[in-house]
């Protein structure tokens, strides 16, 4: 396994939205979840995670709420809004088209 891959901004947004589509999570859990699911390949730095979260919140795709975690500690939980869900579907469609297109170019001899 090489160096953890840096994520471009648009892709990070997509990953965050996807991660939140199941349930509301706090920032650390989002980062952890992306890391786990990607089998430690994708590392999300807090220096890019939180600005991305604030940006998504300002655009109205996610909403934040302070509430207690399982251990009783207060944390800021992010959840997908309805327009965020629409956005996710839209972006997923885009991603599918883009990745298959790139695959076509890269794999075709």
């Amino acid at each position: 396994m090489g160096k953890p891959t840096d994520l471009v901004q648009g892709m990070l947004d997509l990953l965050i939205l996807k991660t939140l589509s199941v349930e509301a999570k706090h920032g650390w859990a989002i980062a952890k979840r992306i890391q786990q699911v990607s089998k430690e390949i994708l590392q999300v730095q807090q220096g890019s995670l939180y600005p991305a979260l604030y940006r998504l919140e300002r655009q109205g795709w996610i909403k934040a709420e302070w509430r207690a975690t399982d251990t009783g500690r207060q944390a800021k939980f992010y959840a997908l809004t309805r327009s965020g869900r629409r956005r996710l579907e839209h972006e997923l469609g885009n991603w599918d088209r883009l990745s298959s297109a790139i695959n076509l170019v890269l794999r075709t001899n």
Partner: protein
Amino acid sequence: MRAIRSLLSWLRSLVRRERVEQEIDAELQFHLEQEAAERVAAGQSAAEAQEAALRALGSVAYAKDGCRDSLGLRLADGLRQDLRHTVRTLLRQPGFALVVILSLALGIGGNTAVFQLINSVRLRTLPVPNPEEIVSVHVAGGHRGLGLSSGFNADLTFALWERIRENQAFSGVFAWGDAPLLLGSGADAEMIDGLWVSGELFSVLRLSPARGRLLSTADDQRGCGTGGAVLGYSYWQRHFGGDEAIVGRTLSLIGRPVTIIGVAPKGFFGLEVGKSFDVALPICAEAAWGTSADRRDVWWLTVMGRLKPGWTVAGASAHLNALSPGIFEATVPQGYSRWSDDTYKQLRLKTTPASNGASRLRQSYDTPLWLLLAMTGIVLLVACVNLANLMLARATARQREIAVRIAIGASRRRVVFQFLTEGMVLSILGGALGVGLSSALSRGLVALLDTEGEPILIDVSTDWRVLAFSTGVAIATCLIFALIPAIRALGGQPLAALKDGGRGATRGRDAFSFHRLLVASQIALSLILLTGALLFVRSFRNLATLDAGFRRHDIVFMSAGYQGLNLPPDKRQTYQQRLVQEIQSVPGVSSAALTSHIPLANASWTLAIHVPNARGEEVGDSKFTYVSPGYFGTMDVPFVSGRDFNSFDRADTARVAIVNEAFVRRYIRATSPIGARLRTVAEPGNPSTVYDVIGVVKDTKYGNLREATPATTFVPSTQNPDRRPNAVMAIHSSVAPDALVSDLRRRVKESHPDMLVRFRVFERQIQDGLSRERLMAWLAGFFGVVAAVLAVIGLYGLLSYIVQRRNHEIGIRVALGATRSSVALLVLRQTGLLVLAGLSVGLPVCLVTGRAASSLLFGLSPTDVPTLMAAASVLAAIAAGASLAPAWRAARIDPLKALREE
């Protein structure tokens, strides 16, 4: 929608800034704890875990900045920093700030004041519901001088109004006309502004009374006697102190009692902007005093209406145009010539938008006001250029600072932003002060226009249009005086600025070229204003000192109405003659005579005439004035030939006439006009008459000073077919006019308690007639001087700056042997070049812009060469004067000192 939400969340985070910061901290802290907790769970010690987590997470400050950026707080932070920086700099240089703010306040205030006038005279709509539906009905092209016109708001006759009333194009239509009324009795009677209004007026305008009731169609029926009066709200407040028990009281109007039935709503001044009506009477009541309603040849009404829903102005106009032949065919005035009748039948009606009412003020002040706005705009521009130069000099001084900032990574946008913030703060302060000033200024302007005979009542309050205007002006000025220096400051290479020892000398002449451009343009602009000033001042002088052909000083006109005596028409002549003798015997009066026409009061009496002469018969028209013997002596009008009227020229003797030179030139042309004949064309009450010319007098001005003298015929007042119980007398005295008026008023009160009299001091009336010219002369002169002073300040500032910056260089020149005079010449040459450049641009512009003013000038053309030369030389002279001090300073530079300042 999203944009709004995003803006709202931005504002929220701005307002709750502290809370937002805390949340970011708390959130990042939580993240750190989780990271550490995970490592502890994996078996690390607490301290180790903490340190590892911190390392893994990277710079907290960087993350926080990223969050702030996402929230858009960085922009606000920058703005806040700039504001703080600006306030600090300005407080450090309070003199600079004060100069800038005050000049902006004056500039923006002046512009706003003129705009306020334009707004209230031209742009604002009538204070009634749905003013955009209101249109007025006119005769297209005017009524061609047919019949008698009662003055300004007099587009239609009663007969025409009756026909238009039945028209289909309007949901409601009404008529009104000016009614100059005398209130009170005897010599204390005063003129008030009355309105004749049709019964529909108040209901069509959808107005409701402040007290009592308003006039309705039931009040406006033929034979209504004196009707009932509705007071104007401000008149009720002014003259009756807002008396609640006003309804039912009576007014004595031209000798007849009229009952007050109500008060019009507050803010309704009538339909003419610039005037305010005192009393409104129904049109039917006119019959109680006059005969206008029965005469088809008297134009005294204005008709306005509300368009029916779905109708356009053009549609209504076409509709009325189509109906016109029938309407005019059915209303031909009787007793006129065939030619008059034919002309009358060709007239056509049209409608025009009238949402902002009628206004004679608008007519005569439209061009002057726009010109004034242009002038104040140029003054502001010149002031702005001064400020730009000032800012530019400051920016040059800060060039090193800016270079350092750019070198260490500040974006250029950020630097420009800082300049703009400074400019915005200054122009907002200046603009706010200016708007405050403008109300006082515009009231001052109105006071300049206000005259005794024609009081002007306009509301110059600040509304959204005025605020939008001054905001726009403030932003524009800010862009001019802050953006230009900012862009210039960025233009330099940071490296060069850092290497340059701050002296600015090494970069050579080029360093000042932009300053020079600004100052030259100031000179060009102020040349335009100075030329305008000289043109208007000279034009006013031409009018004020014009030889009108008669005496201007020590003349009083007395108008007397004696209907109260109920004299039969055949006794009135003798009564009037007795009156003249009575006045003549008053101590101090040197002579007095009757006349039917007060000169220079924009009044006119015209009859069509036939004049047989050597080449057949001339047909045309002439002004007719009926005077008693001694009139020409009283007015000091010299005779060219022939004799004056005398007591033997009576109603029962041969008809005689005295004509003026213009009449002779136009109609008679014979070597001896005495004995020539003229015949008038019949008009109602004025049968065709043949007059023998017995004398010729010098030309005198007639309706106003601007017009050329028309052909005029004077007829003995004893032979005047008009026998109404009114008399106007010209009185010449050796006593001061005001003292004479009060003496006469007292005497008339004693000996003729029933007589209604009104006095007019001729000199004052002439002055009032020139109020527009006086206003333009004063203001143009003022603005011209201000612009010239500003331009010279700019020039002085630039020269001082150049001398200061080139101190070192001049020092070297002197050390190498340059003489004092050659150094001084160095500076003066700058002035010469700047003035030359400014004038050579300004002069052609003057020639073009002068045309805009040509309609307002009298006795000289807008491209008058002596005026242009005078303006140019005045500017050159004061520019030379302003450069003496800097030149002297340059000449005295001590080379040793200058070089030691290394």
